[in-house]
């Protein structure tokens, strides 16, 4: 299940928990300027949450395995071949926002999370 369909489902009923884990509000939607990311700290876990200009939201691990640093929320977002990506600010590896796959090294994708906006808040499922 990818992040988009999860968010579609959750829009109907945010309060209902989906699978393991739980939906939690993490910040205001306005905290994330369009086409940027922020880092959410949730139970010791760092999740990068991105908001694109078209309103879509994505969430994936903040940890960039190629540099070993927790930096992905501070990368530039854009698209390559029509696919939304974030570029790590350290060595510029590109990660697909949809499924966390690294374009330069597709072996081990990053974990992605369901994310949705409701009532001006951003909700994360993890």
């Amino acid at each position, binding site marked *: 299940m990818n992040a988009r369909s999860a968010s579609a489902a959750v829009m109907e009923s945010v309060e209902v928990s989906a699978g393991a884990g739980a939906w939690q509000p*993490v*910040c205001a939607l306005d*905290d*994330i*300027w*369009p*086409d*940027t990311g*922020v*880092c*959410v*700290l*949730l139970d*010791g876990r*760092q999740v990068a*949450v991105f908001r*694109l*200009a078209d309103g879509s939201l994505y969430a994936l691990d903040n*940890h960039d395995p190629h*540099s*070993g*640093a*927790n*930096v992905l929320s*501070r*990368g*530039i*977002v*854009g*698209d*390559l*071949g*029509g696919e*939304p*990506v974030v*570029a790590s*600010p*350290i060595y*510029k590896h*590109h990660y697909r926002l949809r499924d966390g796959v690294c374009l330069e090294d597709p072996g081990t994708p990053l974990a992605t999370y369901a994310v949705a906006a409701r009532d001006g808040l951003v909700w994360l499922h993890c």
Partner: protein
Amino acid sequence: MSTRKQHIVVVGNGMVGHRFVQELLAVHSDLPAAGIELTVLGEEPRPAYDRVHLSSFFSGSSAEDLSLVEPGFYQRPGLTLRLNARVAGIERRRNTLQLADGEVLAYDKLVLATGSYPFVPPVPGSDRPGCHVYRTIEDLEAMQASGATSASGVVVGGGLLGLECAKALRDMGLRTHVVEFAPRLMVVQVDEGGGRILRSKIEELGVQVHTERNTVDITDGATARHRMVFADGSWLETDMIVFSAGIRARDELARQCLLAIGPRGGVAIDGHCRSSDADIYAIGECASWNGQVFGLVAPGYDMARVAAAHLAGSAGVSFSGADLSTKLKLMGVDVASIGDAQGRTAGARACVFTDELKQVYKKLVVSADGKRLLGAVLVGDAAEYGTLLQMMLNGLELPEAPEQLILPAPDGMAKPALGVDALPDGAVLCSCNNVSKGQLCAAIEGGAHTIGELKAATRAGTSCGGCVPLVTQVLKAELARQGVAVNNHLCEHFAHSRQELYHLVRVEGLRSFAELLARHGRGRGCDVCKPTVANILASCWNDFVLKPEHAPLQDSNDYFLGNIQKDGTYSVVPRIPGGEITPDKLIAIGEVAKRYGLYTKITGGQRIDLFGAQAHELPRIWGELIAAGFESGHAYGKSLRTVKSCVGSTWCRYGVQDSVGMAIRLEHRYKGLRAPHKIKFGVSGCTRECAEAQGKDVGVIATERGWNLYVCGNGGMKPRHAELLAADLDEATLVRLIDRFLMFYIRTADRLQRTSTWRDNLEGGLDYLKAVVLDDRLGIAAELEAAMAQVVDSYACEWRAALDDPAARKRLRTFVNSDAGDDNVVFVPERGQIRPATAAEKQMRFKGIAVVPETV
């Protein structure tokens, strides 16, 4: 084949002797493996240097700058360079030679590259103190010593070298005269009409020219050190004299061992550069081929190539004379001479253009049938040199109206260019390095697709640079023919180069990435185009980079206004203009560093870098720095970084200007300027150059009379010596020229292209850059200055702006939902400070020291 080593001895380590060694190494890179032992004997105390550009010694270059020898070049197996080693005699029967100190060396093959010596006319008094010649660095040092105690100087000889030498005297600030025996200057290369314009241009530059003067005596002067008495009874008084009245081959060793000598001196050689003794070669100015001695470097290089090839066993290459066409710049005056410049060919006809207002003279010498170019003279503007030279050398048919080749083109009309397609593959386009069109094409096919790559691959255009326009034409034509689409598109979102995007932003007045993308791009953008466009927008309009419409475009560095490090922390660099800082400010930096547990290091640009700050700590750190009077140092941006300075005349006993004051004013003027890449300045207070300004994008060096401006230097991965753009400037002119230079760079460079690579790829090279920046050839100088004024006037400290903007400030955090720090950032102590823990250290859960005491 015998296994005994072949001992080759080269006598002379001048330009040609050194080139011979390079050519031999090009054939046999491993000398011992080739069974060769190569010994080079140089009479001078230093290895080969560039005698062609000797006069630059007086406008700031040092002996090291002139050196042609890469460090370590002569330290290789099988190769020995001995300096201060003068050869006293050759014993041909024994194949030995004797050094001045009596040592005897055996040779199998001997290469004479002894060069020439300056001819001093046998005039009584020509050996008085203060009388010089102009050939070696030691000669220059002697001239410099004399110049320091002189007010005036005379050059005897108005030829090519004599005028170079006059430039040297003028650069030393002397009242300068040129005394010439012939009725005009440069009598060999230039005709009467050209000589007239040349003379008036040179006199305009403050050099007095005396023609038809035959010096007969030099005695004590009444108002100066010497009096030169001429055959017509007139006289001229001067403090120093330099003889530059031609050269003579140094063939004394050859004469003494009875080698055949040419009719006008020089060791007689055949097409393989062999003398009358099959074991002895002669190359360069000491050799006489077909009765002719060549006083130019290009034929000497050609001989070096031929002799090396022959020694390496290939008899197929031969020297077959040289074209003596030349193009040079004398005191800023372009002079070129091609082929039969004087029109001596039977039936030759001339076509002349003279503009006495602009001081330009151009003449074509064409064949009797009007179909071929035989020669040309260009004075004041030699832009057509390359085209005309190729027409003459390759016997190309002249166009219908050959006069169009030299007439000024009406505005907006292109001149008839020489179709490079018309040139045969064998056409030698770079005569300095003997590179043919065919070799260029091969290199282009082999992947050299920029002018910089082509220069590196072939050496074409790397000596005098005169052929670069033609080489560029060949490059373009060849790429087009090979169907290589030169794709300079920025990325998949924009089918435009950075330069084109800059123009679109400026011309259409676009203020945001979204507007530019909507009009000229596709998709959402990426980490290549977004920062590039952000940078262009900043160069043009200088809006605050963290406005909501600009913030998403910024690299992490520009977003967090710090330099991201490997562990995701940032470094903090407050601006310290010119490297000058008060004790209080030093203490303030120290206190901030201590309070936040930051690692501190002095940078190469004379400021202090504080490492280890997490994103959420930056606003507080900067709040304290700003309160202490600091501004953002823009160390994170593709922008002006530092203006490094030496302490200058205020304290230094050698300084001639206040370099610190100048550095501070320049840094304040250009701080915050966004550019295609980072920009560094240096300002030195005297020619000792302690600020290393010639390794900077913009280097300013104090002179007695003002400031010299150097541009396009670089340290780093590919060091490049900066080039002199203009000399002895007052401050207003200096600033105006820097404005123009920087804006021209910002306007035309590629993404992430430093000024040095930009310059290497600039069509037309330094001359073109000078034409744009100094002479305003493109008519854009006022526009460039206005663009810079806009940036200067709209400067604001980005950290102050970020702290004053609550929305922007709120974004500068590590976590959106917590004030905690990143627990993956772990430091360990080292040499009394912190450093990031290695992965292994983190694994061992060695959490190190609590380095970030929370402050409120």
